[in-house]
């Protein structure tokens, strides 16, 4: 039987994968994907917990996150395109212009 713990474990695994992506990947687009993975890990946890407590607010919260993530992607991708047009690359090591 699949219980709450399974969902939470998968959510934690996804979050860890996203986190590793944020830390390790150098491509800005991949960083973006990694954050999406982390957001969805949180969504899984919210939905599972909402179901477990028989409370819809967890799932509603997950919907909100999805909606806001969608708009964020729209804005973020636009910015990425601009950065790419300006610099010709999305590699973070090459974008470090404010080195202190």
């Amino acid at each position, binding site marked *: 039987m699949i219980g709450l713990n399974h969902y939470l474990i998968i959510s934690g695994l996804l979050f860890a994968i996203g*986190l590793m992506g944020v830390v390790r990947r150098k491509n800005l687009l991949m960083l973006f994907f990694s954050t999406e993975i982390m957001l969805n890990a949180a969504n899984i946890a919210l939905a599972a917990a909402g179901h477990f407590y028989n409370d819809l607010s967890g799932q509603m919260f997950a919907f909100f996150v999805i909606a806001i993530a969608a708009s964020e992607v729209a804005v973020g991708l636009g910015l990425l395109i601009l950065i790419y047009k300006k610099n010709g690359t999305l590699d973070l*090591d090459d974008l*470090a*212009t404010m080195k*202190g």
Partner: protein
Amino acid sequence: MEILVYIALFAPFVSSLFALMFVMVPKQTFVGIVASLLLFISFLASATLAYHIAMTNEVIHVTMMDWIVVGDLSIPFGFVADHVSVTMMVVVSLVSTVVHIYSIGYMDHDRSFNRFFSYLSAFVFSMMVLVMSDNFAGLFIGWEGVGVCSWLLIGFWYHKKDVTRDINPSISPSWAANEAFIMNRIADLGMLVGIFIIFWNTGSLQYDEVFPKLAELSPVVLITAAIALFIGAMGKSAQFPLHTWLTDAMEGPTPVSALIHAATMVTAGVFLVIRANPLFGMEEVAGVSYFIASLGTFVAFFAASMALVNRDLKRIIAFSTLSQLGYMFAAAGLGAYWIALFHLAAHAFFKALLFLGAGNVMHAMHDELDIFKMGALRKKMRWTWLYMGLASLALAGIPPLAGFFSKDAIIESAFNEGSLILWAMLVITAGMTAFYSFRQVFLTFHGDARYKEFGIHPHEMYTYVLIGLSPLAILAAIAGFGKDWFEGFITNLLPEYEMSEHTHHLASILGAIVLAFAVGGILLAAFKYIRGLKRSEKTENSFIYRLLANQYYIPQLYAEMISKPYAELSSIFWKSIDMKIVDATVDAIANVVYKSGDGSRKMQSGNLSNYLAWMIFGAVALLIAALISSAIG
């Protein structure tokens, strides 16, 4: 009448502020004129107040505003014009008006002319606060104010370098200013302690609240308070062993010496004893008072002996001031407060005149002060000769000039108290006073013209300056006749001092003895010096001459015993404690911050990837901290 009190007090302050506006611009003669006028207004107000008080016997008491009100402590800015303070006000404002007028001429070529007037008027204001305050706190403010102004004015020519003198150790104006200030600070501590003791035991600092309560206090408290206050007075009035600063203060401009270091500020100590006469006059503190009288007599003698051989025109007068202050303390210590105050006023007139005359000579001789290089100036400077001769006669105590009446009364009261040793010393001192005053007059104005070989062409001072000096000359001549009137006036406030029947009987004989000593001193000086200076190697190399010329080696003793060990100690503290402990600690803290900043600077790489890694590191660290705290808590 209240408005007159404020005018007398604040006119010098306005004058100071007015002159202050022009300190950055070159000499403006009108600054001196306006300052003199304002001082004259202050004098007029003081004189009117004096007249009013003499006529109606009414004490004018004003409270300007509250100043410190904390819990039980309430110190208002209050001023009182009573018999004592109004006497001081008239003396101070009169002498300072003359000195202001004199300074217009004397400081004529000085590039800091305007600054000088600002300081001088500020001094007068502080002195007015000192004498007019109705409480010990206000007195202390004035006391410190005159100290600061004295410092500013002694060091007025701060740019002058150290000069080595024939006899004295090398000093400069700024050195002398610091010496005066530091010595006064030592004494001021005593004064503060005295004020604290009074407040602690009576709960007030107002004179008219403190003095009635004194009778309830224990003798120990009274004696400590009296000693502590007198230590303050000793510093300001340059009594032994804090006397060395006064002669070194002669480094300042001569008007300053006349006003501050002869006529007014140095008498503040005497004023304090007179003002606190309900304390010093008590049976319980009779010992302290007798000590004051003895110290005063000793200083009178001691200072006069140093003046006998000194060659510096201004220093001779400074020693003479010390000596006369000793007389005043002798009178005050013996309970003859009004006689002390009378001598204070008379002394202010003739001593200021003497100093200003010396300033004329200095001006004529291009700042040369050695009387061995002068002589025969009478022909060139007839008026100055007249003024200085008159002042010296008054100082020597020749009738009918002011000094005779006041000094004779002091010596008589010493006899009256039955202290024959004090009496004898004071009489001998009177003889010495006459000798050194006329030694100076004869060496400066008579005999052979020794200045010629130094290529100096003396000239008389400006006429308006000489006219400006005339009030002092007139007062030095006639003030003595006001003695009986003054006694009636001042004893409304100060205790009466009655000569016993016995003394009264002998008064004329006593006066004759004093007079004989004074005339003898003058004749001796005339015999030795009137024809010219004949130096004798034998006398000048004798032990006593050298002892006196070196001021009993006291300045050297202070330098060796106090200044040098202190400098040594300071250097040790600087190198081992300050540098190695205090500075090292501060440096270590700075180094930690600096090094850690330098290390963590690398974090700021500009690379988003690194920032994110640091952010996650921080979030994890916080998470762990939260876990640990929840586990512990």
